[in-house]
């Protein structure tokens, strides 16, 4: 069996747009795992929470979610992604619709940003992933 070759090179930038949230918990772990994997390949990874994904950033929500029975919490995935170097953004315009206040947001978020920031990231990065 040939050794698998990495598909991401050092210096590549990847944006992960996280739209999934508590209504589909089974979709909420893999994006962070993929982010960690890409970061372990020295890619520069940004993950942008938007749409229902913003609910994962309300304190206490991700702690109670698992993607599969017996699995670790989504909050652990979020923390591990951050520890791996994934930069976490939260969509400011989506917050009012989901009734999220600034002081409810988890500490792991690096930046609360506009849709314009996301648009610029998408236009300038090497790869975009939507979950």
């Amino acid at each position, binding site marked *: *069996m*040939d*050794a*698998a*070759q*990495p598909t991401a090179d*050092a210096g590549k930038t990847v944006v992960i747009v996280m739209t999934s949230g508590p209504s589909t918990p089974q979709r909420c772990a893999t994006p962070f*795992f993929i982010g*960690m*994997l890409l*970061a*372990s*390949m*020295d890619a520069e990874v940004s993950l942008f929470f938007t749409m229902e994904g913003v609910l994962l950033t309300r304190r206490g929500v991700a702690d109670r979610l698992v993607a599969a029975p017996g699995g*670790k919490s989504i909050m652990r995935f979020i923390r*591990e992604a951050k520890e*791996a170097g994934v930069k976490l953004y939260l969509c400011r315009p989506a917050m009012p619709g989901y009734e999220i206040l600034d002081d409810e947001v988890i500490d792991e978020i690096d930046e609360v940003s506009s849709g314009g920031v996301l648009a610029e990231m998408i236009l300038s990065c090497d790869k975009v992933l939507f979950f």
Partner: protein
Amino acid sequence: MAIVNNCPLPDELFYDVDSNVWARREADGTVTVGMTSYACSLAGELVAYLPKKVGTLIERGKSLASVESGKWVGPIKAPVSGEIIGINEAVAARPSLINADPYGQGWAVKMQPADWDGEAGRLVTGSAVAAAFETKMAADGFVGR
């Protein structure tokens, strides 16, 4: 052989403690790199091994390979700068070989170091190994496997 919290740590190897990797200087000047038994305990049984290509130049602290278990994914970081000159086909076929024999057949990557004499001083070896890992494990909250 140092053993800290049931993790063997051969003290003739050189360790980047923060990155949890070991390095062995071979007689021909090349360096063999792998994960420590402590790193294997944290990762769990590995199911995937994704090394960078032979010929890739790697800076110290950057990723030589990515490994995945059912619960974790992360890099095997270069303890010194250099060029990747070999990857482990046996591990590619059976990634859990790293868990089974982390210091022997489960080596991760072979490198031609760029400046071993200049960079090896940052690594821990010999009688300092046990204390260095005791400190790291305490900081990580690891009580043993």
